[in-house]
């Protein structure tokens, strides 16, 4: 099983939202933007869309904020995953994530988090434009921080 994290280069994104749709479908079986563990905020007038995906941080705020030890790293995939048996639905993890990448389902009173689809993220495979990629830990450019240098774009103000 592969370990790593998702990497995002928003520039080639066409705004098709296939990533969000397959994530919701894979996780909930149905289609609701709320069931997705990622989101794309469209900018129909500027054309550069904003993607919110979990970075699988080395020191995740979500796990640190959880008083019940419900968020732990899956040793096989490297993803931080929620044990819903331990989760009380307090929502502290959601407010603790500085990237807004921990989502909330009102209907289930539960947090929603990217678990990298057990090492084969559906969003990355559904993306036809190379916007969302699965960055393997074995990759030399792997980093928990930021976007790999070759994917940085000065137009986005990222240095």
């Amino acid at each position, binding site marked *: 099983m592969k370990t790593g994290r998702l990497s995002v280069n928003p520039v080639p994104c066409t705004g098709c939202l296939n990533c969000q*749709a397959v994530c919701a479908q894979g996780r909930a079986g149905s289609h609701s933007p709320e069931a997705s563990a990622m989101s794309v905020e469209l900018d129909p*007038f500027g*054309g550069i869309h904003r993607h919110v995906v979990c970075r699988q941080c080395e020191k995740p705020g979500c796990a640190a904020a959880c008083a019940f030890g419900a968020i732990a790293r899956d040793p096989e995939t490297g993803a931080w995953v929620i044990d819903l048996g331990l989760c009380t639905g307090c929502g502290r993890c959601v407010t603790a994530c500085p990237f807004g990448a921990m989502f909330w389902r009102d209907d289930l009173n539960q947090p929603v988090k990217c678990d990298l689809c057990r090492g084969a993220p559906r969003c990355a495979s559904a993306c036809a434009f190379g916007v969302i990629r699965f960055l393997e830990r074995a990759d030399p450019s792997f980093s928990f921080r930021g976007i790999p240098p070759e994917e940085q774009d000065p137009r986005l103000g990222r240095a």
Partner: protein
Amino acid sequence: MIMKVFGGYAGRILLVDLTRRAIETRETAEFLPGWYGGRALAAKMAWDLIRPGTGAFSPENPLMILTGPLTGTSAPFSGRTTVCGLSAQGYPREWYTRSSFGGHWGPALKHAGFDGMVITGRADRPVFLRIEQGLCTIEDAGSIWGLGIYETQKRLMNGPGWRVLAIGPAGENLCRIAIIATETESASGQGGFGAVMGSKNLKAIAVRGTLPIPVAEPERFRSVCDLVRAEAHGSHGWPHEPKLDPHRVRMFGQKFQACTQGCAVRCYDARFYTSVPAVLDKGKTLSGQMDCVAGLFPGMENSFYDWKLGFEAGFEVGQIANDEGLNHWEILIGMVPWLRSMKDDGSLKEVDGVPIDVDDPVFWQHLLMGISRREGRVRNALAEGTVRASHELGIGGESLDRLFPAWGYAGHWDGHGDRINYVFFPYWITSALQWAIDTRDPISSAHGYAQNIMGWSRICSPVHGLSWERIMEVSARVYGTTDPTDPRSGYEGKAVAAAWHGNRSVMKDSLTVGDQVFPRIYSNRTEDNFARAGDMEGPSFERHMFNALTGNDWTDGDMDAASARVLSLERKLLIRSFGRSRADDESVIPYFQTIENQVNPFIGEPMGLDPAAFRAQLSELYALRGWDNWGTPY
């Protein structure tokens, strides 16, 4: 046909009566199984609602905006929305017709809890609709009435997830070529439905929602969608993928952009530009999408559309048309070539005080802004659409006959008036049959025939295309005969193709899926060049997605029958309300009798339509549709 309603539908249809300010709902299930979404559902409601004597601007005209079961799901290319009702653009009658748009609005409507809406009545003052999580309210639009489509959307987008459908000044002023649009280039362009919306004093519809769309068989649906998504080639179903223009990437931030949610291919047509310097509004930098026919705004060298605006000015003029809410196809393929010919023959030298100069962006701005605001005698006439304007002004009848096949719409994939799309005899015979029995330009959801054949031929795709023999071999699996694609076939088999693609059009507008990709017929990813994914055959992809999503087990025959029934009901409605007859259908003949634009290399000389042979095909098409020889469904 068995229908088990499990998945795909939000479950309710919104009924808004703006006169009474009443909001009600109906269960979508009332219309299932047969009227399975979008255009199909609209046909049934139209049959029940539209009385003879109702016109496009009558408050009773139902403006129906509908999604389908696939809309908003992970089915690829499934973000479109269908608009139906009596059309303002229709000529000589305001026939019942349909249009559709992409963007992200339809999926949001479903997540807000509705499969569609029917809007009747007329508000006593400008209003907009706000729909969120199963609730709809009628709000005052006094402060946004008069604004362009872009600014209207920006004012009504109160945070992430809001999607807005709006009309511009053109719709407010009842221009018969007014669009309903969302984002910067997704519009229900043909039909004049922007004017219908304007006649109801309805400026916009803002939606947001996160309600789930159920899926009957999640694992099967996921696997079918993944396979279909991976199989798709470039847009237009063509064999190769397009590339960006490095110069425009560098200068104007060109990028690919999905013209509808769910699109999974790089497109020939849809581009977003992030930084285009304005020419008219100096000092400003513009951003926005430029799709499809809008690519002609700058002008195209060595073509019939060779005006010289240049990219920057052309982009800006296109954005003006979007913002004002005007129909691109009408302007670029019909109106401007018509004005040009009026200038050339001396019938019209200026438009309300400004000389006709199609190379000057100031002229275009004057033309478009004046049409949408109905300023000046000529532009006020043009706001009625070119065909009505020509009659009103008493000029340009001959040019009109060359550019507009029928029903008030400019040519499209017909080998005659539309000179941007390459199609020769005998393929435009099928286009002629499609035009004959329709009430609008029929190609909106029927690119799958002529465009597919020409695109896969080695004439248009010298490297990746297929031989004529291979195209015929593959297509015989679809049509049951090689005649529809044989370049030497003459009139044979064209009715078969028109019937088959007519059903597919209904299917696409009802499910909903993108017209530029479906139906999947040809492929360069299989040995025999017949599109396939897993154990599914290309032409059945839509049905497989529909079945897995809804829990049905329809066959291709079921899907075809359901779609054909929609066409017959639409026809019955036309006969009941407008006395539509075979004589109307045959009124397209003189247009197609003129000599074609391109020449079939197997024939070597340009062709025109043979009326007798065409009438025989029309009779055959009626028979295939289950209609009598006068075009009346049994």
